[in-house]
């Protein structure tokens, strides 16, 4: 079976600093994959490279087997890849509904088909209906994260990239947001979830990749990998248990 999304020896650099050294990952239909690793391991860089936000070689990223590396971000969205970016990146000065409408507009323009509609999103996150007319900057962090996830879903993605969606949120809110992920997966959308919290990452994913300093140091089924293995892969050889 061809992977929905795969990277092949992906290299990325910021100026003189090399951030990724040949990353190979695969994501299959309907699968959730977690990317874990310490700060600076290159997790966000990997997602940004896939999304066309960093220059990468054409053959380094494949979507349904087709080389798409370096494709412009808006074209990647058109091809069915959406991202919930780190820091949420909502459109400030615009209401919750207008933030979501931007995605609906573009999906309509591109003729993207999928099951996500505003009413369906309101079922998933009821607060978004209540706050529809509120400016996004006056929402709580958790509510903003729901808008960011909603905005990505309304792009009707077949692949959803989630970058640190639990960052800075209270445990109760994190549970609420992660509780929505199975429903998103049930639509057949494959997911890559970047997550700092190893426990959370394991329960939310089928497989995981652990990254360290721009390389993948461990990969396997989330349920089978031991904490000792993750500890070694997370901090490098010679370090203790998490």
């Amino acid at each position, binding site marked *: 079976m061809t992977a929905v999304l795969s990277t092949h020896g992906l290299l990325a650099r910021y100026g003189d600093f090399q951030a990724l050294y040949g990353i190979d990952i695969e994501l299959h239909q309907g699968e959730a994959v977690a990317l874990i690793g310490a700060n600076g391991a290159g997790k966000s860089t990997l997602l940004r490279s896939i*999304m066309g*936000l960093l220059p990468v070689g054409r053959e380094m990223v494949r979507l349904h087997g087709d080389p798409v590396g370096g494709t*412009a*971000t*808006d074209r990647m*969205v*058109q091809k069915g890849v*959406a*991202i919930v*970016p780190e820091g949420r*990146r*909502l*459109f*400030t*000065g*615009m209401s919750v509904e*207008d*933030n979501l*409408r*931007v*995605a609906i*507009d*573009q*999906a*309509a*323009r*591109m003729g*993207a088909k999928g099951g996500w509609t505003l009413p369906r999103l309101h079922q998933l996150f009821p607060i978004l209906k209540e706050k529809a007319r509120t400016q996004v900057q006056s929402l709580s962090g958790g509510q903003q994260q729901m808008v960011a996830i909603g*905005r*990505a879903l309304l*792009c009707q993605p077949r692949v959803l990239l989630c970058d640190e969606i639990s960052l800075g949120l209270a445990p109760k809110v994190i549970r609420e947001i992660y509780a929505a992920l199975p429903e998103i997966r049930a639509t057949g959308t494959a997911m890559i979830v970047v997550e700092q919290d190893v426990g959370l990452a394991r329960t939310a994913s089928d497989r995981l990749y652990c990254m360290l300093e721009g390389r993948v140091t461990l990969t396997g089924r989330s349920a089978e990998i031991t904490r000792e293995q993750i500890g070694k892969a997370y901090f490098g050889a010679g370090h203790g248990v998490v």
Partner: protein
Amino acid sequence: MEWFDALVQGILLGGMYAQYALGMALMFGVMRIVNISHGDLVILLSLIGISMATAWGLGPLPVLIVLVPLAVLMGWVLQKAVLNRVVGSDPLPSLIATFGLSIALQNLMLQIWSANSRSLPGHGIESQSIEIGSVYVGLLPLIVLAVATGLTWGLDLTLKRTRFGRALRAASADVEAAAMTGINPRAVYAMATAAAVGILGFAAVFQALRSTVAPADGPAQLIYAFEAVIIGGMGTVWGAFVGSMVLGISQAIGFRIDPGFGVLAGHIVFLIVLATRPQGLFGKALS
């Protein structure tokens, strides 16, 4: 009575400034592109309109009908060929590029039309007036004000309610996040500049009808447009409209005090607003 008349004249003058300011509100206020050639584009369009009128014997309305689509096309080409290469979080590259364009346009106009002042024949429309109460109001300034109000209303609705408007607001809030929702920012910017310069097509016709234009007149129009946008507040279309009114009224009252003081009075009010409320009358303070 004399002051009331000044107020009325000021509002009418503000209608003219609003037509320069709307395009500026869109480019500078929304896209953060500093377009130094803004005024020169008005003058260029005016001169093209005047030449069309003389060559083909067109009246003001047919000139307007031809000029506005031409202006839209010019705006689109300007964004595609020049501004999309320099647009970004740093306003300096667009400022430098359009500063060069401004000088080039002024010299091009001098070459084609010489330094002489010209105006668009209005076939009498420019001298008609109607009496409202005890104040005589020129018909042309009234039309200018009505058109400015209509353009402001239309632009405001476009930004708030349409797919294009939402995409433009999204792109100006966060270009990268806009691309992440499928927006092609360069295509959206090209449409926005096309709309901004299209509005200048209206301004060009009315400017050439109500007074004379010469190739070196652009920078003054640029200053008025900047001042109106800053007074009103960045990013708000009705703010730019009100800012134009404030500028027009200040100048008209200044002229009443002393004919040499009019333009300066406008600049002084602008500086007072900048010093006391730098975010503008309708702008939100940066936290």
